[in-house]
């Protein structure tokens, strides 16, 4: 197998670093991934259940603010509300900075990349201000601990997570014949059921029909969220009777265990295995991946009951994964992250960066490059094709960032003639080596290396 440490770090990790050595073998990559999550410990992001201000706290402060209007307490309740909003914005920014910084410091870059892949696969977006700081905590809680675990466990954790439930309106879905639905004249919302089948498991071309969507929506009734309470399941909203999804009939007695069973079956369906295998191969290796690579990964999924470590092993164990052609383009987040890593920017420069400076150097440039942090346009997440990112506007953003920002985040820039090897490895293309040395000044030389296709591809 043609393992190559430079490809390993660039294609499957967060890029080359002058400080952290690339992995020595596929086994080393996999044992890091199967071992403890060092970055989650060293650079923590609070999981949803510990993220403040919580939904409950926000509901309380919002209520007190409404009640305080026009009373003697108004100044106090308004101040409490402003402080809460500020705390939420600070958490959101801190989690963004920490997510970026983990990729600078880690020796386990594959894990960071898998977290971003699965966070995108299970895209949840904030539908109102109370959820804007909860996206990273959702990822930290439902997704990150399971990237080397069983897919079915991740699917269940996500589909019953309050942030996903709210993002896809599941709390509005009520069994029409349930006690609650009957009393309130409420009905189904198929959004979560549809996305579970279309995006999360079988895929849009999968073997399901509208009947399966409706039956799964009925089966998912009861799964809910409420800012005031911790319940993720309320039996009085569940549609009574059996439901049949993809020909399997599930128990007449509605419960969260029935939901778990149905999701577990979907997680190991052959269509799911192929859908996920292809999507992973497209994300990491090529927009048009090798059929043998996809088959090896799908086979591993089916042979192990959806063990994601085994699927990852199958990918890294296939020779097509190590093709010397760098077919993928880094998305803006990964582009900036790998640039910071190559530049050896101190973690402390990124984490805790002042709000306005962060906006100018990172948040807004990523928007220009086409990737507004945590706000993809739909539940299908970010685009994969290189041509969706390397657009005129995207290139304007990337070139401008590469030329202007490195000198803002490092006191002294590295010599471009050495940096070209730090960033691209010993086989850097001759024209980039030449251009780095021919630049007018150091910032321009560093910028040209970072703006080169060789650095932007993986």
């Amino acid at each position, binding site marked *: 197998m043609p393992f190559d440490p430079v490809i390993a770090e660039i294609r499957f990790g967060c890029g080359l670093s002058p400080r952290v050595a690339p992995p020595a073998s596929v086994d080393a990559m996999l044992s890091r991934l199967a071992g403890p999550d060092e970055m989650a410990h060293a650079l923590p992001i609070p999981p949803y259940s510990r993220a403040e201000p919580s939904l409950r706290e926000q509901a309380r402060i919002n209520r007190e603010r409404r009640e305080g209007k026009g009373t003697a307490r108004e100044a106090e309740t308004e101040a409490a509300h402003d402080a809460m909003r500020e705390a939420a914005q600070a958490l959101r920014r801190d989690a963004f900075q920490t997510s970026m910084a983990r990729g600078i410091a880690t020796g386990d870059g594959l894990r960071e990349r898998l977290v971003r892949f699965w966070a995108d696969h299970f895209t949840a977006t904030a*539908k*109102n201000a109370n959820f804007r700081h909860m996206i990273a905590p959702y990822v930290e809680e439902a997704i990150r601990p399971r990237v080397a675990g069983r897919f079915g466990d991740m699917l269940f954790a996500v589909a019953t997570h309050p942030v996903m439930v709210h993002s896809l309106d599941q709390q509005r879905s009520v069994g029409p014949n349930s006690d609650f639905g009957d009393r309130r004249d409420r009905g189904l919302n*198929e*959004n979560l059921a*549809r996305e579970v089948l279309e995006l999360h498991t079988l895929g849009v071309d999968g073997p399901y029909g509208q009947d399966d969507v409706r039956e799964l929506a009925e089966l998912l009734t009861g799964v809910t969220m409420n800012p005031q309470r911790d319940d993720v399941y309320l039996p009085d909203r569940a549609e009574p009777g059996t439901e049949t999804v993809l020909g399997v009939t599930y128990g007449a007695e509605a419960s969260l265990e029935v939901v778990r069973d149905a999701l577990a079956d979907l997680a190991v369906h052959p269509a799911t295995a192929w859908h996920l295998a292809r999507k992973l191969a497209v994300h990491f290796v090529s927009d048009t991946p090798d059929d043998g690579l996809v088959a090896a990964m799908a086979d591993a999924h089916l042979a192990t009951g959806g063990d994601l470590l085994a699927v990852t092993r199958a990918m890294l164990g296939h020779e097509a994964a190590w093709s010397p052609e760098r077919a993928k*383009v880094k998305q803006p987040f990964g582009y900036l992250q790998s640039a910071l890593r190559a530049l050896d920017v101190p973690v402390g420069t990124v984490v805790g960066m002042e709000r306005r400076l962060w906006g100018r150097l990172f948040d*807004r440039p990523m*928007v*220009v490059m*086409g990737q*507004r942090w945590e*706000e993809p*346009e*739909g539940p*299908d997440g970010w685009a994969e094709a*290189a*041509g969706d990112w*390397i*657009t*005129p*506007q*995207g*290139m*304007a*953003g990337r*070139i*401008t960032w590469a*030329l202007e920002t490195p000198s803002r985040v490092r006191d002294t820039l590295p010599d471009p003639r050495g940096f070209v090897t730090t960033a691209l490895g010993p086989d850097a*293309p001759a*024209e*980039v080596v*030449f*251009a780095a040395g*021919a*630049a*007018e000044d150091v910032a*321009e030389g560093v*910028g*040209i290396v970072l*703006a*080169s*296709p*060789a650095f*932007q591809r993986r």
Partner: protein
Amino acid sequence: MQRRGFLTGLGCSLAASPLVTPVALAEGPWDNRLIVIVLRGAMDGLDAIRPVGDPAYAGLRPTLAGNGLPLTDFWALHPSLAPLMPLWRAGEFGAAHATSTPYRDRRSHFDGQDILEAGTVGLDGARDGWLNRLLTEVPGARAGTAYAVGRDAMPVLAGDAPVSRWSPDARLAISPQAERLLGLVYEDDPLFHVASADALRIAAEVDGAQSGGAEMMRVADFAAARLVEEARIASFSIGGWDTHGRQEVHLARALEGLAEVVLRLRDGLGPVWARTGVLCLTEFGRTARENGSGGTDHGTGGAMLYFGGGLRGGRVLGDWPGLGDLYADRDLMPVRDVRAYAGWAMRGLFGVDAGVVERVVFPGLELGESPGIV
């Protein structure tokens, strides 16, 4: 000078770039221009275009109803739109009233905008926007045919057809030496080569056209500059319409801004203005009654404003339902789907077949009688 050197030094000629194909577009159906402005936050149509002749109006709007500019015996214009009066008289500014999307009752900005931009009856399933579906139906559309301009994502243009984006935050000003060296490192990678060359060309054009004014002016300048060249469709959004309190101040500010944008577009488009239609769409109207804080709350029926020499203005379209019979006892009754007005505008501007509008662009819509918008 150096920039020119870089561009002419390209391995493939600019004419082969997907963004530079003026000839193909000028032929066939693409002679006209369409600009869709999404007014995010729900514009109060009853205050922008005032039914002062309706006997119930003054009673519903005790503080907001005054000093409009008469358009007819029945209609008056919000005073902040006074700069657009010459356009009204020239037939280049009109409105459709008592209109809405199919969205009802929940009155959420997010859902309302999603439905407006999806162009569908409900929210189930659609991931693309109606302007993008239009692009898939008109032959000859390229990436440079349609532009989403500004910081917003513009879901109305999202979908399978290629669309270009430009944000006023995007800029590219680099030294001649950096430009030369980047030309060298991109030479063997066609994807990077073409995108960076286009970026430099567009950045240079925008720098030339820009006055450095407020963000919305830069958006308007950019849209006009592209539409004069190869683009045929542009879309951007303007916020600031959610006037729950002190509407007299806040709506005046928003409408003044809109008037500036429209005039800026007209000036930037020059002779092309005569072949342009501008549609200003909003997610829903606002309550017929003023609320207790001098504002209005989320409602249902409202108004669509439209501009441009390519549309027939100087009139208020739509049957007037009257303010005596309110939707849910609170909102202006919508009597026509706003998609029908947009659909007829597209028929007129681009010759799109009625069946295509009803099946592809706005599935589930019945276009009905021509409202005379084109």
